[in-house]
């Protein structure tokens, strides 16, 4: 009985890892990515005034992971653009989201249950991309597991890592904002996923690739759907990091904490004396901090 269930689970995972991504899952990936582009400030006006720049931004959102991975591995940057059908599909989605009459498409897509389905399907694509990226890097560098982690991470987190370049295309140049400084949940999850898949690839993790894909996809889908449904932006790693970081990076963590409080109270009270600052801290800083992190994460929540 036990063996049978294990077998069927293994077969389920195997068939799951062989589902072709192209039309349906890729479509939902494009829809969600371009939806997040539309949420960016100024994106709608940009699409009205400079459609070409907006289109290039949309392409970066859809194919940023491939471009970045190609850059890292020294392959042609526009390699992925030879997939005419994918690019045309992404362009059609971009056109519908930005220019559909009455915003019908946008309204349908951003209706919460529909959006949840698309978000779930996007996570399936993300996990598959991490696995493919690591396999690809393994093909180039057999023992370079840092290379594998980097490629998988880049493939998973996509445009978030090149947000500065993407902002530059939209005419915003803010070198002081950076994804690596404020990693969002998908970026962190891709990093951890890349590490797991690399361990699997180098046979340190005694699981088959198909079942790892299955398990990690389930984890990502449930997390992401839960986060999107509740509109919350606490990443599930927060609890874990709260325990691990003080141990590993104790001194830095304390200093950082202090710095954060200082900045928040400064922003909130607009310059009280140092004495007043401390009295304000407990009430104000908590609220400010949570708000700040929430706002940060709405932006990068792809």
């Amino acid at each position, binding site marked *: 009985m036990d063996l049978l269930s294990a077998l069927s689970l293994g077969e389920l995972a195997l068939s799951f890892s062989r589902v072709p991504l192209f039309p349906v899952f890729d479509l939902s990936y494009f829809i969600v990515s371009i939806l997040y582009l539309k949420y960016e400030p100024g994106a709608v006006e940009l699409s009205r005034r400079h459609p070409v720049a907006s289109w290039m931004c949309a392409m970066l959102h859809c194919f940023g992971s491939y471009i970045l991975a190609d850059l890292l591995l020294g392959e*042609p*940057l526009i390699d992925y*653009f030879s997939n005419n059908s994918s690019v045309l599909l992404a362009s059609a989605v971009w056109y519908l989201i930005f220019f559909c009459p009455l915003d019908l498409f946008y309204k349908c897509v951003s209706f919460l249950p529909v959006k949840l389905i698309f978000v779930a399907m996007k996570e399936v694509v993300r996990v598959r991309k991490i696995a493919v990226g690591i396999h690809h890097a393994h093909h180039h560098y057999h023992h370079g597991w840092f290379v594998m982690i980097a490629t998988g991470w880049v493939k998973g987190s996509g445009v978030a890592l090149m947000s500065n370049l993407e902002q530059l295309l939209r005419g915003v140049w803010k070198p002081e904002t950076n994804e690596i400084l404020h990693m969002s949940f998908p970026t962190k999850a891709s990093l951890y996923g890349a590490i797991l898949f690399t361990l699997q690839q180098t046979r340190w993790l005694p699981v088959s690739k198909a079942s790892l894909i299955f398990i990690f996809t389930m984890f990502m889908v449930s997390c992401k759907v839960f986060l999107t449904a509740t509109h919350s932006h606490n990443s599930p790693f927060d609890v874990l990091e709260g325990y691990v970081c003080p141990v590993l990076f104790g001194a830095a963590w304390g200093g950082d904490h202090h710095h954060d409080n200082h900045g928040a109270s400064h922003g909130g009270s607009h310059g009280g004396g140092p004495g007043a600052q401390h009295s304000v801290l407990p009430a104000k800083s908590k609220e400010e901090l949570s708000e700040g992190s929430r*706002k940060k994460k709405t932006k990068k929540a792809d």
Partner: protein
Amino acid sequence: MDSSWEDLTLAFSRTSMFPFFDIAHYLVSVMALKHRPGAVEGAWKNPFSSWFTAMLHCFGGGILSCILLAEPPLRFFANHTNVLLASSIWYIIFFCPWDLISQGYSFLPVQLLAAGMKEVTRTWKIIGGITHANSYYKNGWLVMIAIGWAQGAGGIIITNFEQLLKGDWKPEGNEWLKMSYPSKVTLLGSLIFTFQHTKHLTISKHNLMFLYTIFLVTTKITMMITETSSVTLAPFEDILSRMLFGWQHQFSLCEKKCGAKSSSNGTGSSVSKPITDGSDDVKRKHSKKTE
């Protein structure tokens, strides 16, 4: 008559770019560099940086297409004669006694001749880019369009990046987003030549080269004489953008008219959402900065 036309276009398409047309291209590019504010003082203070900028101006398109195709970006240095030619033109323009070249160049017919010859090189570059991309990707016509465009007009992007790194230029302005006239024309040409290459356009290559070059040269010269920008493409663009990207606007206008009578809030909500999102984001960024 027919055969003589064929002969003419065929002979034209076999013209070698090397000495004269390339010289005109380098001349126009380096002159554009010299007319930038602060370029001359920069050349006196730091000749090497100025020389490198000049090389970027002259070979920018090739560099961009090399980056896109994962080839060594400095491959243009292997072409010694062209680099030496461009360097000598840079030297003459910046350091010639009494600024003879600049004074000669400010004479309008010379400018017209040089600009016309530069436009001829553009056609050749587009075609070179397309055939090069086709050798990598047989069916990737999007890649072919992109590489053709990068070869023909990529210098603008490369020089903008160079200025950005130097800190001379901030992308808040619209120049970056607004495509300049040469880049639009190059995009158009790249499209046409790609369709020709994939046999969707039943016209022989040399005829197309001739016609496109004539179009480029005449528009450029009329633009220089009348001192206007974007003469030819503006009406087409207007129509095209109204056809492609104007739907929503027209519909929302229509609905506003209707909404004045029957209070419908359909577009209201859809419009207000991104705006509130935007203001929220600005706030967020503000708080991030203060942190």
